[in-house]
């Protein structure tokens, strides 16, 4: 039996898909990132200025963005 897409599947046998964060560590990674975002947001809340907006806001938002995605995956909604 041979057909083009099956051949592609066989050709890629050496490279199964590996996610950046495995299923087992999604919760830990998500929790750490969300906690970081929480702390950084708190610090920003106490000390709002044009300097802390990018210095604390950008890392806090990035941590919340990735942390939220991993936490949602960890609780079973695989987005």
């Amino acid at each position: 039996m041979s057909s083009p897409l099956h051949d592609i599947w066989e050709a890629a046998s050496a490279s199964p898909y590996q996610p950046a964060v495995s299923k087992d560590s999604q919760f830990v990674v998500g929790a750490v990132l969300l906690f970081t975002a929480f702390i950084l947001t708190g610090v920003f809340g106490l000390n709002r200025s044009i300097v802390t907006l990018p210095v604390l806001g950008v890392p806090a938002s990035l941590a919340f963005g990735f942390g939220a995605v991993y936490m949602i995956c960890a609780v079973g909604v695989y987005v």
Partner: protein
Amino acid sequence: MRSIALLTSCLIALSSLCAAELNLTQSLSSKQILPANFKPPQVFKNVNLVRTTNLDKEYPREVINVIIENIDSKPQSEYYLPFESSLLSRVGGLEVKDKKAAGKLPFKVEVVEYDSYSSTQFYLIHLPEPLQPKAQQTLSISFSVLSALTPVPATINQMDNQYVQYTFSAYSPSAYTTEKQKTKVKFPTANIPDYSVLDAPNADNTEDPQKQGSTFTYGPYANIPAGAEELVSARYEFTKPLTHATLLERDIEVSHWGGNLATEERFWLTNRAATLANQFSRVSWQMTQYSNPPTSALKGLAMPLRIGSLNPYFIDDIGNVSTSRFRSNAREANLELKPRYPIFGGWKYSFRVGWDADLKNYLRKLKTGDTYVLKVPFLEGPRQPEGVEYARVELKIVLPEGATNIHHETSVPLVASEATIHRTFMDTIGRSTLHLTAINLVDEWRDRDIVVTYDYPWTAGFRKPIVIFSALMGLFTVVYVIGSFDVSIGKKKTA
């Protein structure tokens, strides 16, 4: 430095929002329209034909092995197979192979349409290489017929044995003259109280049919003209449920972030068995639960899942059904379901089951580019000793948001395929989805795979965190701007 690179990639991801276009391969649903007075050209003859009808399961499985010969003066490649129109709509999984080249791919087969009022319709079989004049080829045509068994009597008592009747033609359906043919019918039991005996003897001048245990042979017959029919029927014991799914919706969701393949199947089941003559008696049902005699009621469903399946669930209209067992280890992953009530003839039950699996067993990345290849089973569902038939199967493969250039390939005959968008949690533009429809499948098709390839640039993967990032960053900015307003009512502090 890394955050700059990340930011750049995010911008690219946002800019590709509008560029996500689907490119889908066309399905096999093409139909050839023929004029109303169409008759298949008599360019072939069937030299020898052996048809085997296997009645072990609730759907008859037919295998027609036929030696065809080109009797025309030109090479021919189009072989027609006729069916009565009411039968054609129930024929499923028709596959034609070269009997002498078993490893090759099945031939291309399509339904031809010429007059929807005609009582005869045709399947058109395309031989991969035209058959030269006077040359012969052995075809192996296999298919199953759905909703073919009728319980006779139509109503029985709760503990009674069930008898079903199957009506078929002793002559195999053919659009060409058949020189020699016979039909073997394999029954699941030797308890066959009624069957048709033909008046005329067969070509060997013996009684027709010939009986050997639970196998009957109608024929051999010599020189049967094209389109000839000789209806016969048999009634035999079949105290098993006739499980019929009017619809199966199957969703497969790929999550790159979660490394997960989520499957959900929604069943609309009915049992075509004989209906109950009296009211259902819980007492007599419970009394038989230890001796476990054969019954026409559907008591449970066994679903062997792929090894490594996780987190199964079984839900019906009321809620979670707790009467299920899941046994999972390195060798098996068996999901055993028990419906809330035994499903007797004419009763219905609809439910959904779902499970997760690790994506690495189903998805591979090509070495070059951002192309991924996904290989998943087209059909899973229960595997029952008596079989399960599906009138319609709708498969949705939900790919990640931003997947483009989608191609698919499967050996399951499809009636429709389209690309749609599926919107769910945390989506901005919706996920690219492949929506495939197949009709008249049976549980034997559960080992067939579908292979899907798609392009998924790594920038598209960052769409979800970037959307959340932008929202929160916007919130911070708003908080900063509002917080810097001076709304005090006292004197302005100068120092």
